[in-house]
């Protein structure tokens, strides 16, 4: 289980994440939702150890992650929000480099990479430079790099970004499959429809604070709202969207 207790992150005194506590259990997919700038990606980066917390604790399988960060990193896979990759490498080279950095056995990792490239429809372009990859192809490379070492904890920050319909359906099933195989999956996305289908629980963040943490079913019945989108709009969207759209159109007409 992944557990966050009273986690804070301040940037130059401004709180980006403010007293966040929740847990994500093995065998289920936990959705982590929030509008832009609500602190989702910052939380994800703190969970990966890429940035340090201002205060609080993060536990994985009952142990603080900072106690043995190296062992924790071996057990974790992460798909970042932006598809930042080394553009001068090919897809195969990048994945092989990640396997080497993760110290995976050469033969096993080579077979795994080949298999992943085939299943993710990247095999024909595996020796092409990543600079020429589409956004979806880059996303697939990130997904392959995140799961190739069979991690116990899978952190997915906007994993559907740029994926075509077919690949998105595969990824949706993959997320559920990983959870079914006992992995802890924390999944952040703006695609509420997908979250509603994939996640058993959601944590909704607004201005760095948690405003909801429950199963989708329970949230629906508690708030008497039919969809996750309606729940999200009520909890985390402040402005009148229609009025804002009108204002934008008026502005460019002026």
């Amino acid at each position, binding site marked *: 289980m992944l557990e966050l207790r009273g986690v804070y992150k301040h940037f130059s005194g401004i709180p980006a994440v403010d007293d966040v506590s929740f847990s994500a259990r093995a065998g289920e997919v936990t959705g982590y939702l929030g509008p832009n700038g609500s602190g989702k990606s910052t939380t994800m980066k703190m969970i990966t150890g*890429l940035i340090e917390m201002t205060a609080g604790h993060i536990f994985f399988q009952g142990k603080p992650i900072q106690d043995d960060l190296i062992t924790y990193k071996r057990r974790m896979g992460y798909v970042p929000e932006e598809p930042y990759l080394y553009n001068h490498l090919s897809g195969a080279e990048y994945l092989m480099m990640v396997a080497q950095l993760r110290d995976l056995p050469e033969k096993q990792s080579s077979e795994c990479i080949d298999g992943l490239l085939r299943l993710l429809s990247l095999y024909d372009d595996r020796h092409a430079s990543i600079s020429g990859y589409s956004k979806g192809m880059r996303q697939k490379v990130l997904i392959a790099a995140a799961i190739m070492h069979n991690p116990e904890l899978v952190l997915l920050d906007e994993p559907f970004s740029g994926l075509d319909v077919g690949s998105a359906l595969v990824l949706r099933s993959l997320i559920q499959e990983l959870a079914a195989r006992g992995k802890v999956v924390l999944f952040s996305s703006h695609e509420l429809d997908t979250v509603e289908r994939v996640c058993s629980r959601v944590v909704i963040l607004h201005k760095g604070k948690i405003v909801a943490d429950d199963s989708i079913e329970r949230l629906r019945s508690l708030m008497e709202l039919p969809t996750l989108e309606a729940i999200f709009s009520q909890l985390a969207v402040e402005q009148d969207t229609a009025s804002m759209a009108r204002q934008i159109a008026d502005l460019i007409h002026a």
Partner: protein
Amino acid sequence: MRKLVELLPLQVRILYRQFLLRVVDLEALSIQADIPRFLGQFASVLIFISLIGAAGLLAGETATATPEGYLSFVWRGEQALISGMMLVVGLVAVISWDSTFPDRRDVMVLSPLPVAAHTILLAKIAASSALLGLAVLTLNFATGLAWPLLIGSHHSSIWGFFQSFAAYWFTMIAASVFVYGSVLTVQGFTALLLPRRMFLRLSAILQILAFALVLGLYFLRPSITTPTGMAMPENQWALAWSPSFWFFGLFNQLNGSIPLEFGWLARRGWIALGIVVLGATASLLLCYLRTMKKTVEEPDLVPGARGWHWTPRFGSALQTAIVLFSLRSLTRSRQHRVIFAFYLAGVLGFALSCVRSALSTTAHRPLNADFLIATFMMMTLAVAGLRSVFSLPISLTANWIWRLTQLRPSEKYVAATRKSLLLLAVIPVWFISALLSLSFRPLHAIAAHLAVLAVVGWIFVELSLIGLYKVPFTCSYLPGKVHVQVMLWVFLFLLLILAMSTAEVELPSLNNPTRYICLMVVLGVGALGLFAFNRHRAQSAVLYFEELPPDVITTLGLVAVRPSMPTIENHIFRQ
């Protein structure tokens, strides 16, 4: 220059500034994208070279006593000035590779905007011309006046100075246009004839070939300074195919000082200039009319190459990952290639000077100090160059993967960096030196020198590793840290002195076993000591991916802290 730019249309002026910024990657040179500062530094180096050159020429002229000696001095001077100009412009062309042609970013950003292709072309040409013009003006800043004055005084006509002045500047501009235009022509027609994907692959190879060609033509050019030498059959091939001799002929034709039998050299110069100007103009126009569309239509994605993809192993998985990452970054990133080429120019220069001296005789020669100095300089320049490019990140945003997969202690990363420096700098230079040493004898002295060179290379690697607790090509750096100018003078003066001193110690010891053993023991102990020091420091080091400025205390400076000054405290205590 600024007034000339102001004459251009507004769109051209805006694009000109953007393109000038990218003619040479200023970020790579760590000058904080400050164009005037970069151009100022570039100009000051060339002016300095020009001043030294002018002083040398004036001093050389006073030493000539006979008319034959004077003619030889004049021809040598003219050939040196023209080939020097061509070398500088050639290096500028290599450094600003691809910058005159539209790249994918230009096309994608500017195509949706109401900007015509000819506006982009004009702005690109203006940016390239600005850099080229600056190179021509500053490199001839002093020599461009001193040389016409010097040879104009020997002219039969009273207008001699003006004729020599005009001939000098026309020749220098023509030689520069020839070199830069040749590069543009080759690039342009390659882009037109080949599919874009293949062109992108070939462009990097062409850049390296152009770099080697420019240096090769400069360092291997024979010096033919007498009419007899010009008429010798064995020199005809060099005269016919070395462009610097064509422009030497052109200058003398314009100056009215060419012997009739060498008029063909000037004709070659004119023909070459004409072909290159036409070729460059045609290739640029066609590229802007045709290739811009092709750039959008043909994505940069190169399909998976069929066949064998060999991934060699270099020790542990981490070492293999870091060595391969370094090798790929170095060979595939234009920015890093260009910076490394700056150092490689020195390596290649020393290597070619060795080749030239080897070609001058067919017999085996005894090992000499010049060769020891050359190999020492090659080794230090290669290690320093690689260490310098290691500090420049290739993609800071992609570094998260290194942080996320940092599963081993820092010392393992330092060891992998050491291996990268040894494999990519020390071993190649050592092999080149071994090849170059084949013209020397005795063999035991060569073997002894190569052993010394290997240890020297190792010492330089260990010196480079002091405080280097980062993965090559991944760490951000603070602006202004890599000063190319400072590095240039350090290498030219300090290292040359060090190389000369080392050669002075090494040369006699090569034939004296006792001295040689002492030398090797000293070097070996030094290398081992540095290795142990780096290893010990690396055990407690923390890998870093961002360079942070040192902590400083900033004082407002409102009150000078001097005992004699009436400070507030003193005033209160006196009360």
